């Protein structure tokens, strides 16, 4: 992601989050790439101490890589664009964590984000995360739970406090959550959302690779090899060593049957935010107590009773790769929600969650492969049973799928009562005997529905006689990409253009006549739309001369649509649009500078009603709305960038 606009955007983000010093250093590094300290000092025109402090803090924030060469002993600095870019995604991540694991987890997450990386022991000492009444262990648990539930209902507009551990969230934490830190950290680690910091993570991937290669080559057994064999062995060894050095996986020992410990527990709490579902949670809890044999082993290791704390010596950071997986799954879910019933989407959610626990990152290659050169890559297969276990018992599965036949009413009458009874038992309460076979069949039905075209959101696999379900991620990621492009095309050039592009994408290169036959459009419209799209860079023309003279009359003209090319240019546009939004925000902020400074005065802040006039209050409100809108737009653009670059 090294391009003019990406660089511009990252610099803006750094400036927005960390101020001018960081921005100065970062932009210098973006411009000149790898620099030694002296060169960096020369280009950035900063004083020695400024630069040293800045660099140290930026290393802590993972904003730059540093590498000390063995040859000359000079340390080089390099910008870490990826992690600078992730600053923009922090809000989305925190929202996601809050939804998945609760408010406190989001607070912990935002603290870690704010610090870049942090030692567990240090987190313990932070007042924002510190439990105030830590002596009330088991007893306070119930009330704590209740309060959690209340809070969920009470909070309407949760505000994103980006990188602010002391923001809104922090205020509640000490009083409500007793000794939550360790179990929460464990949950985060179990889900893979955080990872251990390793030394190698401070160097760029290339440096690490070269380093690893060097040390592999020094090994005596490798030295003995020659030619092709040597190359292969070095390659293999390098990859292995890299993996070992970069690996910060914390999930080991925290997973149980492919599910992070405590995930289910929190899943139930998470469901409580919708009041209508509240009653169901109780049933589920009772159910668990009664028939969950495997659940018993850990269903009671709740927040307060988890006795083994996280090692205090471990340094942790955010695992963005894993979070990308989770966010990508959310996109797939949205895709499913658009075309399927809520019940089907819910089943899909369960499947995706199971898969997420076992998927480390979105793809193996660093670059998105070219269209058509990408192999199929299935996720881990999840057995149907596991999905059935996760699906809410009260979900009306049968009622949202139609019958196989509708033309024979007799048959339907025969079938209906059967479904009824399934529903009936399901609704009778926790004591009803769930007819497992039917339930399994219904879940399978829903998953089959998802496997249908056009999206093929799932695919069925038989693994040693058991039905399992997987998701073909690469295919779906591609689908998402195409969908984004199609949206842009439709918005800019209309639905006629969309049809043309889809035809071209499906059939490859076509001449005008054939294109007309397939798209059934009048020549005039077709030409117009093709011409405007060509100016916009979405389609292009290839000339195939029939003889050496290349006369236009003897030349075949073929239209084509290359999604890769379009994707790249749209990605650049997205970076640019994001930085424009941020720049505009800065500009707007400057317009209201004096007023905003007043609102941020320590005596005014928090007491706005008392110190500000009526007009000023509306102005403040407007400003906040404006800021939210612009930042929201940036986040929306980021979603697009994620689809085109990360998924």
């Amino acid at each position, binding site marked *: 992601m090294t391009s003019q606009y990406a660089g511009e955007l990252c610099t803006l983000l750094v400036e927005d989050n960390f101020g001018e010093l960081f921005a100065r250093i970062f932009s210098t590094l973006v411009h000149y790439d790898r620099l030694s300290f002296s060169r960096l000092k020369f280009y950035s025109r900063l004083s020695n101490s400024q630069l040293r402090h800045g660099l140290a803090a930026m290393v802590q924030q993972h904003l730059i890589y540093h590498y000390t060469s063995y040859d000359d002993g000079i340390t080089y600095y390099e910008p870490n664009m990826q992690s600078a870019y992730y600053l923009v995604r922090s809000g989305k991540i925190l929202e996601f964590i809050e939804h998945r694991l609760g408010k406190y987890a989001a607070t912990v997450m935002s603290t870690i984000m704010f610090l870049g990386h942090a030692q567990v022991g240090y987190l313990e000492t932070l007042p924002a995360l510190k439990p105030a009444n830590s002596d009330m262990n088991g007893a306070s648990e119930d009330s704590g739970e209740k309060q959690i539930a209340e809070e969920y209902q009470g909070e309407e507009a949760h505000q994103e406090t980006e990188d602010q551990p002391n923001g809104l969230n922090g205020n509640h934490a000490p009083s409500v959550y007793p000794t939550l830190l360790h179990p929460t950290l464990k949950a985060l680690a179990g889900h893979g959302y955080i990872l251990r910091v390793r030394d190698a993570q401070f160097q760029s991937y290339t440096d690490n690779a070269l380093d690893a290669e060097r040390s592999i080559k020094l090994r005596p057994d490798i030295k003995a090899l020659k030619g092709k064999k040597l190359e292969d062995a070095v390659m293999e060894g390098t990859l292995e060593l890299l993996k070992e050095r970069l690996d910060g996986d914390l999930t080991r020992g925290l997973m149980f049957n492919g599910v992070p410990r405590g995930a289910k527990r929190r899943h139930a709490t998470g469901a409580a935010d919708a009041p209508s579902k509240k009653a169901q949670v109780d049933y589920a809890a009772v159910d668990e107590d009664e028939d969950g044999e495997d659940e018993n082993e850990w269903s009671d290791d709740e927040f307060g009773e988890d006795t083994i704390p996280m090692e205090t010596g471990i340094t942790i950071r955010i695992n963005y790769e894993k979070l990308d997986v989770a966010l990508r799954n959310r996109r797939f879910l949205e895709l499913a929600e*658009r075309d399927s*019933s809520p019940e*089907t989407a819910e089943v899909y959610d369960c499947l995706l969650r199971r898969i997420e626990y076992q998927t480390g990152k979105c793809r193996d290659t660093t670059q998105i492969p070219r269209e058509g050169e990408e192999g199929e890559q299935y996720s881990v297969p999840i057995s149907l049973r596991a999905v059935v276990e996760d699906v809410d018992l009260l979900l*009306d599965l049968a*009622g*949202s*799928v*139609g019958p*196989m036949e*509708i033309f024979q009413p007799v048959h339907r009458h025969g079938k*209906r*009562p059967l479904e*009824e*009874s399934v529903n*009936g038992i399901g*609704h*009778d309460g926790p004591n009803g005997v769930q007819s497992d076979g039917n339930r399994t069949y219904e879940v399978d*039905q829903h998953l*089959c*529905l998802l496997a*249908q*075209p*056009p999206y093929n959101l799932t695919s069925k696999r038989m693994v040693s006689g058991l039905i399992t379900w997987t998701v073909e991620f690469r295919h779906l990621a591609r689908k998402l990409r195409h*969908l*984004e492009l*199609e*949206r*842009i095309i*439709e*918005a*800019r050039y209309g*639905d006629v253009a*969309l*049809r043309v592009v*889809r035809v071209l994408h499906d059939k490859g290169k076509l001449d005008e*006549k054939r294109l007309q*036959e*397939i*798209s*059934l459009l*009048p020549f005039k419209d077709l030409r117009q739309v093709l011409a405007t799209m060509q100016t916009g860079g979405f389609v292009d023309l290839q000339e195939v001369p029939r003889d050496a003279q290349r006369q236009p009359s003897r030349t075949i003209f073929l239209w084509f649509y290359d999604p890769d090319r379009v994707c790249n240019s*749209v990605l650049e546009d*997205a970076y*640019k*649009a994001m930085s*424009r*939004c941020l*720049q*505009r925000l800065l500009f707007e902020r400057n317009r209201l500078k004096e007023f905003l400074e007043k609102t941020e005065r320590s005596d005014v802040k928090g007491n706005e009603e008392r110190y500000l006039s009526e007009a000023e209050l509306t102005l403040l409100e*407007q400003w906040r*709305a404006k800021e939210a*809108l*612009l930042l929201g*737009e940036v*986040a*929306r*653009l*980021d*979603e*697009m960038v994620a689809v085109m670059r990360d998924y």
Partner: protein
Amino acid sequence: MTSAGSSGASVTELASKLYEQCLNNYPPDQLFYQHDLLGLGIVPKSDLALLLQCTQSLVDQKLFRLLQGKNDRLAWKIISREDAEKLKNLSPDESLVYNVIHSTGRSGIWVRAIGTRTGLHKSILDRCLKSLEGKNYIKSVHNVKFPSRKMYMLAGLAPSEDVTGGAWFTDGVLDENFINTVAGYIEYTVSRKSWFEAPSVDVHRSKRMKTNDGSASVKQETSQKTYIPFPAGYRGYPTVSMLTNAVNESGITPVRLGEQSITQLLDMLCYDNKLVALSNGEMYKSVKNPEAVKQSQARKPAGEDKGIDDRLVTNGMTEAPCGSCPVFKLCAPGGAVSPESCEYFDPWLEKALGF
């Protein structure tokens, strides 16, 4: 002398016999080679010279058409008596032109191509064509592929699909209204068959009451019809032939549409994201349920303001002012077009926030 006279008479006699035989025993576009004609056993002793005389006389009477068969062998085709009557009245030039046009059949021929093949001067050619057209022997046709070319074909023939462009063209122009009507009809028909209409509440309720407290029917109590998808592997989705029949019986089309034309239209609908082809185009399923289809179709003729929900959901790029900015490429901080001086942001903010 008698021999000459008798031979002259016998040639015409033999020739007409030959013609009758060919007409009765073979289909009208049979290609006759020399040995075919000899095989009929009419020409005595397989006399080649005599056969040649016979065929020549038939060709002169326009009852036979001389053709060049495989390997440059001579071959003939019979012409019906009525056509021969027509041809007899033509001047040599006209018949030359007629033959050329005849040879191209249903695909028609370009005027310039007639010229090169007959070698006639343009003015003569024009006269011939005019007189042939006047006699209603040929007609001018409009070719979709070459709209500017003047083309002719025999009056009695219907132009082929290549020439007309298929059922979707009227007079060589794509008939958009017609396409839209049929497409809308098909979409609705498919949609009706690809969603299961959940049974209405009151019928259902009485049954439900027996088994449970009715909490499950909360969703269905909405007055609107609820549509739910069929399970995977459902075989009741409409097929091409079903749809073709439905369209032809509906009376919205003046001409009978073939399955091929309907398939073409179905493909188009798939590219429009309205239908989904299942199992390799064997069956079709609609994306939207009948209610939604009705709504979106009702909206279209109403005016320009197409609803947002008819489109794909928007994304960041299409919402941001930058996404539709005409000078986005020139935009740079501090430049002539810059985020600070941008005139699109303010209206955009106002529109979004409403103040």
